[in-house]
């Protein structure tokens, strides 16, 4: 893979799809599911069903779903706050995700963390902190563990373009380069970090240029082109898995809504969103699959129905789930069986 290749066009030139019909269909399913759940969550939020806030990733699905789809369940994922697509594709049950958003005991975090911070060790998704780029460092450590152990698992590190300005991000990338770690970094450049435009975040246009400073390939692609993401990330994962070291893939994409649901995002130019909506990754991919006769309208209808049903059940499960008991605040501070007297002494 060439260093710093700009807007790779390989995928476009391919006439035949780089995946089987079955694979293509599955991929579409996850994209659709992510979109559907995300929009439903926004609705639940407005209805007051969710707690705190909600970070939508609508418009960016390709950049999280595809890499996760291409990974193995034993590969580690270091997500940030806009990676609902990773969780859905890796298979965190919707019911637990919904419960998480409602701060219920049955959420993966048992109501402890913060909305949209999906993760859990059984999924090898590092439950994120809100501190930007921190998971990039952590997942780099996962990749180090794989290298030390001689396993062929890889790490997948997700971050926004804003997070690339963070201190720790630099240290992680640099170390991954030095140690040729098995990891793929996915930069979701959605042009905005809350209200801060990318031009105030860095004096470069293509954030993949940053990879060069660490001695490994960086590539910028159209993050709304599922096929391009597929081809690029697949190759990057293959490189990582066979010991050729890290790759950074910058996906140009766009956040349709506010930073979170309480942000009207009125700092953005009016027509920017409209332009990006035309590049919506999901209809584009749907058309591609239908053109390739890999997906039929009937398939889609069934998928929609399946997803709706699962979502409905999930919502019901979450809604009926209990909130944590107050004293559960004292759980999970230390490992089970250690220092319990210290923490629980509070109750006396």
């Amino acid at each position, binding site marked *: 893979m060439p260093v710093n290749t700009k807007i790779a066009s390989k995928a476009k030139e391919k006439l035949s799809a780089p995946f089987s019909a079955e694979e293509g269909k599955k991929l579409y399913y996850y994209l659709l599911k992510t979109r559907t759940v995300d929009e439903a969550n926004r609705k639940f939020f407005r209805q007051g069903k969710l707690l705190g806030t909600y970070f939508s990733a609508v418009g960016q699905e390709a950049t999280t779903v595809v890499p996760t789809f291409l990974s193995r369940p034993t590969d580690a994922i270091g997500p940030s706050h806009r990676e609902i697509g990773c969780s859905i594709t890796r298979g965190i049950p919707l019911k637990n995700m919904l419960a998480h958003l409602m701060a219920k005991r049955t959420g993966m975090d048992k109501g*402890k963390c*913060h909305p949209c911070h999906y993760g859990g060790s059984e999924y090898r998704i590092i439950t994120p902190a*809100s501190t930007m780029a921190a998971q990039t460092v952590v997942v780099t450590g996962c990749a180090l563990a794989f290298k030390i152990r001689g396993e062929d698992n890889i790490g997948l590190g997700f971050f926004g373009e*804003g997070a690339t300005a963070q201190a*720790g991000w630099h240290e992680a990338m640099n170390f991954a380069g030095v140690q040729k770690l098995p990891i793929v970094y996915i930069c979701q450049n959605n042009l905005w970090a809350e209200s801060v435009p990318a031009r105030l975040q860095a004096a470069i246009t293509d954030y993949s240029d940053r990879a060069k400073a660490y001695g490994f390939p960086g590539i910028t692609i159209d993050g709304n082109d599922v096929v391009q993401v597929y081809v690029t990330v697949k190759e990057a994962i293959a490189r990582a898995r066979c010991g050729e070291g890290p790759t950074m893939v910058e996906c140009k994409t766009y956040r349709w809504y506010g930073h979170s649901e309480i942000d009207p995002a009125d700092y953005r130019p009016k027509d920017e969103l409209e332009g990006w909506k035309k590049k919506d990754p999901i209809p584009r991919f749907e058309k591609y699959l239908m053109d390739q006769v890999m997906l039929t309208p009937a398939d889609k209808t069934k998928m929609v129905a399946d997803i709706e049903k699962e979502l409905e059940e999930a919502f019901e499960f979450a809604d009926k789930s209990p909130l944590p008991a*107050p004293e559960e605040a004292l759980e999970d501070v230390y490992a089970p069986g250690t220092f319990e007297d210290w923490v629980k002494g509070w109750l006396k």
Partner: protein
Amino acid sequence: MRTVTFIEAITEAMKEEMERDERVYVIGEDIGIYGGVFKATRGLQSLFGPMRVIDSPLSENLIVGSSVGAAAMGLRPVPEIQFSDFITPGMDQIIQQAAKLRYRSGGSFSVPLVIRVCCGGEVGGGLYHSQINEAWFVHCPGLVVIAPAFPYDAKGLLKAAIRDENPCIYFEHKKLYRSIKQEIPDTDFTVPLGKAEIKRKGKDVTIVAYMLMVHKSLEAAEKLAKEGIECEVIDMRTLLPIDKETILESVKKTGRAIIVQEAPKTGGVAGELSAIITEEAFEYLDAPIKRVTAPDTPPIPFSPPMEHFWLPNADKIIKAVKETMAY
């Protein structure tokens, strides 16, 4: 006189100081066009332009560290940390640079800056939008640590801090932003750094608190007054240097002390205040000093029942006061 909210007081202080002194500038994430995630800097960029109201990259180390350099060159930066939970990437510049440049240069450099930090819970912010972390800085000589509870103090202390030659860290409790209003003068005023204030007089027990906990303490005091217990409520306002005199004088009068702290108990500021009282007013104490704090878990679990269980409140203060009175 005019009534302002806590956050309006903060915005006004910055605006007035920027008008008064062209060396003053602000820098932080989302503070320019957006006016800050809580709107503390609303309107400032259109008044003072993008070189005095700087939208920084997502870089806390830079936000603080560049301010140290600019302060050393004679400017008066007011960097903002969007949430105190995100102060950790900036710790190196606060602790090793801002607080120590004067000392390590033998007094050659001055570092007049004010790091504004949005902090605190009771807003459902969960583990990463509720922290305060004030205790670390109280253990950092060279810094001035400010923690107001009322709009008047918020404005007066921020102005005083901006005019002060020392590196200051100024904690703003986000729960207070819009929930607390107060009348303040129309004319310029400052509140002295390093001075606590008695916010309610009382003879039976001294309650020492800061930020949101002052309000919880006053609420408790009102209720207790109905039962005939008169609490003296001290608002620390500055956490470093510590105004020992105000505390000690009060405790010498009441003989009993409660210290209220929103953060987890162990290693917090309340312990320090308790130790000072024991050291310097032991013979006046009629009962052990009690701390009302959060438990020793990461601050603050998200789900409402846990957050409520976790946070100190008026009821918990009342309980502590009664136990102390019954001792």
